[in-house]
């Protein structure tokens, strides 16, 4: 049990980030109008694509003869990139419609 406490103690900074980010996340989108629910969800979807950074680290650390790590790492990089790039492009396309509407009105 004490090892768990130790672990918490050693990672306090990270635990603080988690707690504070939960509040920031809730606060930041608190007043979103329902029209923007879909683009906001799509934008958030693109942001959690940061997982790509983990994939890059996995890939970059893999030894040249560890084929499992290389193959899975490569797949992870591809999927992560899909999430990031696809996510931002789709969001931009949705929002493009909104901005066009603003101009014509």
């Amino acid at each position, binding site marked *: 049990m004490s090892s768990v406490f130790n672990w918490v103690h050693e990672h306090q900074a990270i635990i603080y980030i988690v707690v504070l*980010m939960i509040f920031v996340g809730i606060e930041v*989108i608190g007043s979103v109008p329902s029209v*923007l629910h879909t683009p906001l969800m799509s934008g958030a979807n693109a942001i*959690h*694509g940061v997982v790509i950074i983990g994939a890059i*680290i996995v890939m970059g650390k893999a030894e040249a003869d560890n084929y499992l790590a290389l193959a899975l790492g490569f797949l992870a990089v*591809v999927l992560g990139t899909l999430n990031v*790039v696809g996510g931002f492009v789709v969001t931009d396309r949705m929002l493009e419609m909104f901005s066009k*509407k603003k101009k014509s009105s």
Partner: protein
Amino acid sequence: MEFNILSLIYLLASITFIVGLKMLSHPTSARKGNAVAAAGMTLAIFGTIFLYNEEGDPLGNYGWIFAGLAVGSVVGTLAARRVKMTAMPEMVSLFNGMGGACAALISIVEFDHLMHLLDGSGVVILMLADGPGALLGLVIIILLGLIIGSVSFAGSMVAWGKLNGSLRDFSFRGQQAFNIGLLFLIVGLAVYLVVALPANALLFFYVIFALSILYGLFFVFPIGGADMPVVISLLNSFTGVAAACGGFLYDNKVMLTGGILVGAAGTLLTILMCKAMNRSLTNVLIGAFGGNTATAAAGQSQGSYKEISLSDAAVVMSYANKVMIVPGYGLAVAQAQHACHELEKLLTAKGVEVGYAIHPVAGRMPGHMNVLLAEADVSYEKLLEMEQANEEFPTTDVVLILGANDVVNPAAKSDPASPIYGMPILDVELAKHVIVNKRSMKPGYAGIENDLFFRPKTSMLFGDAKKVLQDLITEVKNS
């Protein structure tokens, strides 16, 4: 020095995520917000590639990394550019699934790596360096990333399949109990793996992986198609948490901030979406659109309805003072937004006041109709939100419903037994005349009969929305 620059880059990226998300929640700044977050992400990715190092060793395998980035970027951009506006929701779900799978893969590789360390003398070094708690923490986080990532991946794939129509709702007796049992089994195995760390840990790990995928499938399968946006939003926040697990694993602040931010915002967004439909999250997840309610609804009404001819409909609308158009998923499917705008312009030219009544959950996702009509250059002021529209209906002569169904179903107000009871609806009945365009008498997405179609004020105009609108345009021109 380089590593310090990377820390600064991560800090900047984290700030762009927060600011980006903030800007995304306001109509005027939303597009810029998306660009800001994307810029931060690019910075973080390239910073990681070139500046990241672990105890002095920089990353290798650049060829693989760039090849992966290139493949992902090209495919992602093409897919996102080519997708039709109607298919946007399923695209989001698909991309979300990719993120979940990515998190799960990271966990698989890292666990495999950890097991190799344990086989050798690595474990001793690890223990001495970080204390015995480090190993425990590491395994917990890897498992969390694996489970959440896999559930999100499998669930998103089902949601994607359901939205594009290739998968149907599927549930069996006692599925709730089965799901809960499955979840307990996963957690139990995970706890055992963490506490005992048995010799065949890898086997346990893959069993947990397989069960998590299975749970993801069974979690989403029984949920009705109309609730998919809520589910996607929930899975979106799951993937955020999975990404944050990666942040823990690598002590990487930007993954942690981004992941937790999306996890929290996604959860709130899920709740907000439920509120827009006036339902609770548990209600969505347990599934109010179950078999028993559907049979109850099927038993009632089935009166007679009357049809209206195209020319009559054209005449009624041309000589009206005020026409309200209620768009729904049928309009989106038929890609009839341009024809709709044309009819609106034609009627306006004839001196008819035309407005659009937009229900917050019309179509498949909140805001779906706004995006669609904006694409056809319909002016912003003509789009009325539900409360405004409901004030307009008493003075409206003709309401033209284009492929909307559940959002105008009076059962939501009058029938406590109805699965959509309590959902705010558009009070189209207050208008003098209601014309409903539908492809057939088939019930809407919630799978329930709509009493509105059998009311004396209502006339039906069957056919594909685009075809009907084009014919109406011709008729209005002639009349």
